[in-house]
Structure formats: structure tokens, C-alpha cells
């Protein structure tokens, strides 16, 4: 496993575009997380000028709620990670190196697992960035620091990792089947923003929640801010096992399809 990890790391880190994408991802992420609280409070207070009641300003950064607030926000940027994954997967088909590495003696299983490891690494990379940002912002904005505030709700970090990993499994599947990066990214967006919402709309009740993008998005739900509480709206403030199970099922299915592809394909 360590050997496969090293191989994937060499391929990724020697590819300049990956550094740029990673850097842009980090910069966008950091500016959103650092700027979001001020932005929301500005919008809210502007809107509140005309209201009779005064609206309390929100604090997104205080622990333990910061785990939930910030992982929720960060998950909107997962398309960046999918782009990184898609580029690295389709590269192997464009350069035909997926064939050459089998000629060189890598087994079909190892080829598959090395790409699963790549998805894991991308998800871990992103999770690590979020963890650091949440800790920095949390420590700066939490009045009473104790071990408890760090641990409570830190399950959202794991949930975030899982959300990214699952989303990448779909990106991996599409990239493997279409081989071209632009096309794969387009399909992923098209499915997520057009196809699935339409199917979801046509389905009775809330069956749409079982579709992959919805299920993945449901793991970390919109945080329940003080603002929302004023309006009496309640949101899911925990990680629901149900959401994890639905997402796991899709993730396993996507990886299974790719696995079969790697076994049966004439490279």
C-alpha cells in the first residue's frame, strides 16, 4: 500500500497544475472561512435596519459550533477537489500510462487501489486544511476553551472527510468512464446541478434525498444559527446515521463499478 501511495504522490506532485489548483483551493477556502462571519453580519444588519426587533449578530467561529458551520461552508468547494481528482485520473488514460504501468508489472487490482488511495489522499488533504482553519478561528473566537469544546461536534470533521471521499468516488467513476477531463468535469456538474435536481423533482415524496449528490450533501446540513432560531426554523445539528448509510451505499457502488472496469478492460 505504501508503495502505491508513493507512486501516486510522485505522479501528482510533479504535475504543476495540481500545485496551482491546490493553491487556489486553499486561498479561496481561507478567504471564505475568514471573511464569512463579517459578511453575514453586514448583510443581516443592513437588512435589520428597517426591522423593529434587533437581530443578534452571529458567531460562526466559536467552538464547538465552528466545526459544523465551517465544514458546511467548506463542503461547497468540493468541486475543486473533484477537478484535481479527475485530472489525475484522466491523465492516466490520455497518456496511456494506465496501460504502461500494467506492462511494467502492476496488477489490475493495484492499479485500481492506487487510484482509491489517491481519492483518500485528496480527501485527507482537504480535511487537514479545514481542521487547521477551524482550530485557528475557533481558538481566536471562543471565550472559554476547554477540551470539551474541541471534541464536541468534532465528528463533523469526520463527516466532512466522508462527504468529500464519497463525492470523489462519483468523480472517479465519471473520469474512468469518459477518460477526458473537461468532459468529466462537465458531466459531474451537469449531473449535480441539472440532472439530479430534475429527477429529484419528478420523484414522489422525498425519495430525491436518496440520490447520490443529495445524500452526500445531506451529511452535513445547514447549521442552525441564532438567526434561524428567531424564525423558528430547526435544522439537523448532528450527523445522522441514515445519511451516512445512503452515502456509503453509493460510494461502494461507484467504486465497485470502477473495480470491475479495471478488471475487464482491454487497456
Amino acid at each position, binding site marked *: 500500500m505504501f*508503495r502505491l501511495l*508513493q*507512486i501516486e504522490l*510522485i*505522479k501528482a506532485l*510533479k*504535475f*504543476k497544475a495540481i500545485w496551482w489548483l491546490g493553491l487556489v483551493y486553499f486561498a479561496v477556502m481561507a478567504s471564505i472561512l475568514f471573511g464569512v462571519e463579517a459578511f453575514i453580519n453586514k448583510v443581516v444588519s443592513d437588512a435589520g435596519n428597517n426591522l423593529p426587533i434587533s437581530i443578534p449578530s452571529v458567531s460562526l467561529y466559536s467552538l464547538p459550533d465552528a466545526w459544523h458551520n465551517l465544514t458546511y461552508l467548506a463542503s461547497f468547494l468540493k468541486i475543486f477537489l473533484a477537478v484535481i481528482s479527475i485530472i489525475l485520473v484522466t*491523465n492516466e488514460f490520455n*497518456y*496511456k*500510462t494506465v*496501460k*504502461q*504501468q*500494467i*506492462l*511494467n*508489472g*502492476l*496488477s*489490475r487490482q493495484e492499479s485500481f487501489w492506487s487510484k482509491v488511495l489517491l481519492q483518500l489522499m485528496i480527501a485527507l488533504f482537504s480535511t487537514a486544511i479545514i481542521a487547521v482553519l477551524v482550530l485557528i478561528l475557533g481558538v481566536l473566537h471562543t471565550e472559554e476553551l476547554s477540551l470539551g469544546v474541541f471534541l464536541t461536534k468534532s465528528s463533523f470533521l469526520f463527516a466532512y472527510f466522508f462527504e468529500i471521499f464519497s463525492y470523489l468516488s462519483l468523480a472517479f467513476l465519471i473520469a474512468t468512464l469518459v477518460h477526458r477531463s473537461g468532459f468529466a468535469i462537465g458531466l459531474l456538474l451537469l449531473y449535480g446541478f441539472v440532472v439530479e435536481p430534475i429527477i429529484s423533482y419528478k420523484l414522489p415524496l422525498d425519495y430525491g434525498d436518496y440520490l447520490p449528490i443529495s445524500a452526500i450533501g445531506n451529511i452535513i446540513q445547514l447549521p442552525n444559527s441564532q438567526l434561524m432560531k428567531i424564525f423558528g426554523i430547526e435544522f439537523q445539528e448532528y450527523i445522522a446515521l441514515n445519511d451516512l448509510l445512503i452515502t456509503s451505499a453509493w460510494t461502494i457502488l461507484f467504486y465497485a463499478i470502477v473495480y470491475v472496469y479495471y478488471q*475487464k478492460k*482491454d*487497456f
Partner: protein
Amino acid sequence: MEIILQTKKLNKQYGSIKAVNDLDFTIRKGEIFGILGPNGSGKTTTLGMALGVTLPQSGSFEWFEGKYGKNSRTKVGAILESPIFYPYMSALDNLKIVAKIKKQNYSDIDRVLKHVELYDRRKSPFKTFSLGMKQRLAIAAALIGNPEALILDEPTNGLDPQGIADIRELVLRTAAEGVTIILASHLLDEVQKVCSHVMILNKGNRLAIGKVDEILQEKNILEIKSENMTDLKNTISTFDDIRSIKEEDEKLLIELSPELSADIINKRLMKKGISLSHLFMKEKSLEKFFLEILKKENV
């Protein structure tokens, strides 16, 4: 002799095209084994199956009589069709990946780079290499980990005469170190110059297999008969441009050197007072006929 690769009834069909048809062959240690056939005859498909990138419809193959089990593939270096590397990486980084795949130390990389004379260019990106250099780097990659067999598929395709000479020299030098070579080519001339053994393929079928000397030699065989066979035989054996004489079914089969013809032989015999009751230039065999086609294609 130790067996390197043996196939049994390998088959591969693409739609209605039978790319490889019930193919059996055995390659032994130390051979430079040529697979000769025109484009589309199934050479690449055959090698692809033996190397695991193409899945056979039926049939089987075995490397090294099974002695390395699942690891046998790391004992084979292979280049199929064209050199494949990550274009954005240097030669050195590319070979690091190959070394990792083959579970070899990076220390082997310098040796193979020197073997193919690319050591000085090891830090250049692969995409800046000429085709000849790419081909040599591919051979370097294939040699990492001291493979027992090296597979080359049309290794001189598209190269200039100097590049071709370099590759052929490299193949012979590698073979001299004890590596068994399997070389697919559509060039009769290449197989004759480089290989010790050959299998001829056409449309996925094996037409011939054996030593290059025996299979590819141009033979002019004349069948003759006379009333007095002993006389005939004695006279013929005095001609020193006859390569061999064989008696078969009360006829003599004589192998002529290329400048001789049936007419010349007949005249000579008449001068010696021997008249022939039968004179027949043997028809070219299927293989020879096919080789003629190959030769014409490559002019």
C-alpha cells in the same frame, strides 16, 4: 532448455475480426525470438495478452514455467507499440515510478540509463526527447530490475537509419547479457538481422515457426530425374555451386545458389551427356510466398 513463455490455443476476437487464432508457441531461454507479420496480423494483440493488458477470449499462457508465480511479470520488461511515459516528468522521475512498480531500488536507475546512453539527459522532461531517445528510455525502463525477458514491439518504427542502428545494436548487446528477447516486427530484414528464431503470423494464424536460418533462408530447390540416377548424382556433385543434394522418391532435390537457374543446370548436364527425364523447379511454399509479399510491402 528452460521455457520463457509458452502459449496454448490463445484466441482473441474483435467483432468479426479474428485477431489471434488458436495460437501456440514456445519461446526458450536465450533466444531472440521474432514475431513476423504484416500490419494487422495480430502481433501486438498476442503480446498484449501475454502481458496482461489484453484479455484473451480463450486459451492460456505461462511465463517461466510458472516458477515465479504471480510475480512473473516483474521479470519481464515490455514496450508495446510506442514508448509511454508521463510527458511532464523527467526521465529520472519516470524511471522512479517504474522502479517502484517493479519493487526495485532507485539505484538500478543509473545503470539502465547508462546502458541506453541517456544518463546525461536524465533530468530533461520526457516530452523534450526525440523519438529515438524515447524508444531508448523505454528500453531502459524495461531493463529495470534485470528482467529475464525483454519484449519489444516494432521498436524501430519511425526511426531514422541512425536510430534504427542504435536500437538494433542495443537489442543485440542486451541479448548478449543473457536476456531473452521477444521482438515483433513487420520487417523481414529486421528479423533476419537481429533474431535467432522466428514465428510468422498472418491474420492471427501461425504460418511457420523455427530457427531464422531454416525458415527465412531463400532456397531454390530443383527436382531432377534421369535414366541413370547414379551418373546424375555423381555429375551433380562435381558442380560446386550446388548447395545441397537430397534423394527423395527416386528424384534428386538439389538446392541451387541464387545465380543458378534450371536452364543452366540442364545445359551443363547435356554437355556431360546426361539427359533429364524430369526437371521441375519446386513451387514456393506458403511461407515463402508470404515472405515475398512482406518483402514487396517494405520496399
